[in-house]
């Protein structure tokens, strides 16, 4: 009489021991936003040169970084080293450029330029202060050895990233 009871009890244990999975959902909003405020324009002061220098008819592009949480991100900005679209070119293009902090929303950001890291066409900034920072990019393309650029439309891209540390 005892065994059936135990068997029955085991049967009950098996019935109540069923597994279940539940889900946890979380959403992370970026605390760093990159906004292209001003698109750049190349000026063409000489046949072989395209430049964003305002004195030569160009416009420097401006990118704004909005950081809500300080010291969690770094900005990586690359000035162009190639045209994204352009007429067919049969000679070398020499690229040059720079990235500088042009506006800040906090005086402590004015030290960013002193602490930036530059390599190749890339400039990196540690975003150590919450707020908005405006970066101005300069770009220049010199074609061949004083060779005239073919007529047409030239496009180049500035890459701006916000990289979590």
């Amino acid at each position: 009489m005892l065994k059936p009871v135990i068997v029955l009890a085991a049967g009950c244990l098996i019935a109540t021991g069923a597994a279940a999975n539940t889900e946890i959902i979380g959403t992370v909003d970026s605390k760093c936003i990159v906004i292209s405020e001003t698109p750049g324009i190349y000026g063409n002061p000489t046949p072989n040169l395209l430049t964003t220098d305002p004195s030569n008819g160009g416009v420097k592009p401006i990118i704004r970084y909005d950081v809500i949480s300080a010291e969690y991100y770094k900005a990586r900005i690359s000035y162009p080293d190639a045209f994204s679209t352009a007429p067919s070119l049969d000679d070398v293009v020499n690229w040059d450029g720079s990235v500088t902090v042009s506006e800040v929303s906090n005086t402590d950001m004015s030290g960013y330029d002193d602490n930036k890291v530059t390599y190749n066409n890339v400039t990196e900034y540690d975003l150590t202060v919450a707020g908005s920072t405006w970066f101005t990019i300069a770009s220049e393309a010199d074609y061949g050895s004083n060779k005239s650029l073919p007529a047409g439309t030239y496009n180049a891209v500035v890459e701006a990233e916000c990289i979590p540390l």
Partner: protein
Amino acid sequence: MKRLSLVLAVLVSYSSYSYSEEVYGSTNNASAAGLNWVMTNVLPQFAGLEINGLVYQYTAVKDPESDMIVYVQNENADGNGYIFRNADDWSGLPGNTINKAFVIPNSLGELWGDGSIQIEGEGSVEDPSVIYTYKYDTCFDPQADPSCPGYEEIVEVPEIPFSDPLEDQLVLDELNRQAQIDREEEEEDRRRRQRESKIKDALENLLGDGSNPELLSAEAEKMALALFSVNLPTDYYSPLEGGEYIETVILDGGDIQDNQKARRANFAQQVLHQQMVDSQYGSDASAQQEK
């Protein structure tokens, strides 16, 4: 008929529809002419205007090693303290262009006094820009527009031409008539005083020496003569006739005896008086008396 009434009601309600509108805007650069500005010259002059935001930008030019603090500020309209003040501390930092935006809980524009950018330390500010954003209700004053809720029709006040009462002929006539009456009354008064003066003079003459008997009736003249015939004293110091009154009482029987009862009573009163005096001066006086 019902449909017509409904249409009329809709038309009437449509024609009397009123609304107010909130208008949003932003000022020009308040610091375009310098680092100090007067808010009444910056904000549009609308009743109930409220400031809801402020954006400023400038470029700090300085030596990275030097100390510099830049204040962007607005005084209270009453000149006591600041309604807005923000400090940018550039000390030990390289200069740059700073751009800041502030959201301000709707604040009455009339509370905002003059603004300025103040620099403490070494350095300067270039290309400053201070812009205020604002809003106002077009019907803050319901009388501003007939379409505003609460608008009340203005009662036309009839224009009454001004006329100088002193140029009105009726008034002038009345004034002249009153002036004539005043003159007549004054003349009558003068004549009355003159008559009274004459009567007074005549009476004085009559009562004086009676040299004008023709002014009185015969009876009065007699009375006056009788009055003046009384011999009045000519001197207040007339001598009085005096004399001597001789003693006429003669005592019968010789000496007058002393009244013993009267003496005792007199003595008793004297003792009582002395005791009363002594009681005022204490035991010394009593001792002296005992001596």
